[in-house]
């Protein structure tokens, strides 16, 4: 009974949600159009709803305050199907509409990579949430990032472990996919810079069923602190449980997946007392608290990073166009890059020349299954 009800409500919610948002775009004429590629369908359809709601909340606020350049803003959503060809198709559909002045892209780095060539060809600003550092460092001047990139998470983990927890002998465990490898390397580099040692740097393949060899390696390395980059929550859950079973109880700091809801559920007590980085933490600032309150009113659930970045992106983009005073892509670009000290839901935005808006993370702690905000660490370089 439960199965069917759950399944049915998903279908219902999905089929109602998509037309509802697209339907808003009905009024033609004197509107200013912004395109958005979001996963309406596919594996990330649920996250896509968060992203759409976050953008919509910002949009309503902007329109209530008078819109942009005196016009109401209209959001045109195109489904990216959570796939790379899907987002290429979706973006090509939007790009064909010449009166769209700017776009919101994807939170998935691989999808941003997929659409990047077309973005460069079109030459209009695209706000993105993908965290692969390369995205803003590959000569594509039209991508603007509204989340801290992965190179900062390693620095934040190292800084917190060494300076706050006072541990200097590290074991690093990371997935061998691009995210894990880059993260592990960033952490090792950051540790090297602040004079800590890496006793073990161990990669593993995603969807491993057993971590006994990895845990035994951590145990034998004699490290006094553990840092990790896990991509999938079930891997993290198995690892964390075997860690405790085999008697490893050193402090543990991890990449964002360590504080994600699914990981908390799977690992249970095995992750109590660990620390993680998180780009959105509701308790981290007044702006974040305000966004949390707004989001709950509209969606009846707590927001997460999927929603906070589109919320910030929509707000900053609207402000930038207003400041530029025109819809010329070059002028909008200059205005976004000139955004400094903006208090967003995710933190304080200070855009650099590459198009990166955020340069730090929140550190949160797992207190018996509850995620508690600890501190925000920002870098200025």
């Amino acid at each position, binding site marked *: 009974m439960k199965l069917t009800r759950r399944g049915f409500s998903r279908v219902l919610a999905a*089929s109602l949600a998509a037309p509802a948002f697209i339907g808003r775009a009905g009024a033609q004429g004197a509107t200013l159009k912004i395109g958005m590629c979001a996963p309406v*369908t596919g594996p990330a359809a649920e996250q896509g709803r968060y992203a759409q709601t976050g953008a919509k909340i910002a949009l309503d606020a902007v329109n209530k305050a008078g819109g942009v350049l005196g016009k109401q803003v209209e959001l045109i959503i195109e489904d990216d199907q959570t796939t790379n060809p899907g987002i290429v*198709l979706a973006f*090509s559909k939007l790009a*064909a509409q010449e009166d769209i002045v700017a776009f919101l892209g994807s939170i998935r780095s691989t999808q941003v*990579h*997929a659409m990047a*060539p077309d973005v460069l060809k079109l030459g209009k600003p695209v706000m993105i949430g993908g965290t692969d550092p390369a995205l803003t460092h590959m000569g594509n001047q039209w991508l603007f990032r509204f989340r801290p990139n992965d190179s900062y998470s390693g620095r934040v983990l190292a800084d917190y472990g060494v300076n706050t927890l006072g541990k200097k002998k590290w074991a690093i465990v990371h997935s061998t*996919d691009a995210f894990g*490898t880059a993260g592990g390397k960033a952490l090792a580099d950051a540790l090297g810079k602040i004079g800590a040692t890496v006793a073990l740097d161990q990669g593993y393949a995603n969807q491993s069923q057993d971590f006994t060899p990895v845990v035994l390696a951590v145990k034998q390395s004699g490290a006094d602190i553990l840092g990790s980059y896990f991509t999938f929550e079930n891997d993290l859950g198995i690892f964390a449980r075997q860690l405790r079973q085999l008697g490893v109880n050193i402090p543990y700091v991890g990449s964002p997946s360590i504080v994600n809801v699914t990981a908390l559920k799977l690992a249970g007590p095995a992750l109590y007392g660990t620390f993680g980085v998180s780009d959105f933490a509701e308790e981290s600032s007044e702006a974040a608290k305000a966004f949390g309150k707004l989001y709950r009113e509209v969606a009846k659930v707590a927001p997460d990073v999927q929603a906070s970045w589109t919320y910030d992106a929509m707000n900053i983009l609207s402000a930038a166009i207003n400041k530029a005073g025109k819809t010329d892509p070059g002028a909008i670009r200059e205005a976004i890059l000139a955004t400094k000290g903006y208090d967003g839901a995710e933190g304080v935005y200070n855009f650099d020349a590459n198009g990166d808006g955020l340069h730090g993370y929140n550190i949160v702690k797992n207190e018996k299954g509850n995620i508690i905000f600890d501190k925000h660490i920002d870098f200025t370089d």
Partner: protein
Amino acid sequence: MSATAQAAKPAAARRIGGRFGGPLAYAAVAALATLAAIYAPFDDYILHILVETATYAIAVFGLTVVLGLCGQINLAQAAFFGLGAYAVGLGTSDLHVSFWLALVAGACVALVMGAFLGMSTLRLGGHYLAMVTISFQQILTLVMINWIPVTHGPDGVGNIARPAFFTSGHGYLGLCVVALALVGYLVWHLPETKLGRSMRAVRDNELAASVSGIDVYRVKVAAFALCALLGGIGGGLFAGGFAYVSPDQFSFAESIVFLTMALLGGVASPIGALIGTALLIVLPETLRFLKSVPGLYLAIYGLAVILIIRFMPDGIWGFVQSYLRRFMTPPPFAQAAPELVLAPAKLETPSALEIEGLSKHFGGLKAVDGVSFSVRRGSVHALIGPNGSGKTTTLNVLSGLYTPTAGKIALDGHDVTGLPPHARTAAGLGRTFQNIRLFRSMSALDNIVIGAERPGNALGHGHAALVDRARAALGFVGLEGRARDPITSFSYGHQRLIEVARALAGNPTLLLLDEPAAGLNSTEKLELRGLLKRIAAKGLTILIIDHDMALVSDVAEHITVLNFGRRIADGGAAEVLRNPDVIAAYLGAEPDAAHRA
């Protein structure tokens, strides 16, 4: 592949040419499609969809070859597609080589991997092949994700270049349509080539294919490599079209999508492949709501696979075709069938077949134990014996299905003891089976064409000559009027005659008949007796194995008798049948033999 395909073109052209205006019409349609691709006012979205359809369809053509024609499974087509795509991606964006060079390199890598994969498992059964292709698919995905220095890992490869002159969306689509038309033409006509016929024969009946002179293993490897090659070409073109590739586009799930495309459209024909591909690309675009629930559309694909396999095994195109066929009966042959020529090689040795000390042991059981006899050229020789005497084992050793434990077999003076079945056929051996083994999806004529195509058959080259020879053989057994009928529409007795005709069409030096009278009624037996006499009159050497004493004593000049795996008599027919040991063996072992005789 290209060599055979090109060789086949003139023949195919001639055949079709008379009927439809042939390749000209095809070329005209292809040209029209290309022009439409270049000049029609499609927007970028439509262009993307059409490029996707064209490039996927090329890969699905590969499945038409391997699954439809050859009956082998490939669950890694997305991996081969990915090899081509990554070759073009990495080649143009990282190594900065020309698009064409990268495309050729990718196709070659796919071809080599396909051939290697096929060679390592195609000797084993289809289950292993399914398993190994899944493993290959998984390993390739692992490599794409984990070998970051080369593949860029999950980030994928961007900035993929298109070739000069084809950089615009329309131009590139034009290129893809031309490629699709060329590959489609080759795949369409593949069944009319020697390789294509061999593939169909292998699919229908491997044993019969091998005794028709087809090297089953090589044909399977060729089909598999060809499939991989088409996957690679499709993938390479796809990479150019989308300018970005990443591992998740070439996962196991995509292999299943390819498989579903082939099955849905109809696995037997490239037209089906194109229909299936277009439907599964366009339908999800219009039926997006299916994708709003993760997993739902793949669940529907899975269900569709089961339902298609069960209720529409030939796919949409096969379904349509079965209706079209009613209106499109092929024209009758213009000329009457020629007389069957049997011209066995004339050599100096007096015996066509020489067997010395032949033994075959199964563990402790000595099924054949030191048997020797020789078959004189131009004679009808019978090998008889009660049940379990080792007759059929002897025959299987003779045709190469079993390796002998000891002994020597010489055909036409050449030692063939170590040769596999297809090589013995090439050396001049023709045979039929006790339980008929025909290629059941083909017409009578096509069955016999495969027999006529026996390597080493000096008579007749080229498609027209093969068809003539096949009609002659069919005429010889009295069934020429039903040449185009499917095998399944023939009676049991007629199927046996077709099997004999298939062997005769190959112009063998020696014809082995394994219990030809088994299962025939008395009228059919009379017909068979007449046929054997007419074959003998043409000077062909026959070795016949049967229980039917009336038949044997009527047609055979020479008889060898086996009992318990040993030779108990050998000599002229009349003399042997009077031999008391023979009578005792028959009466002792099989009391009703006298009645039968």
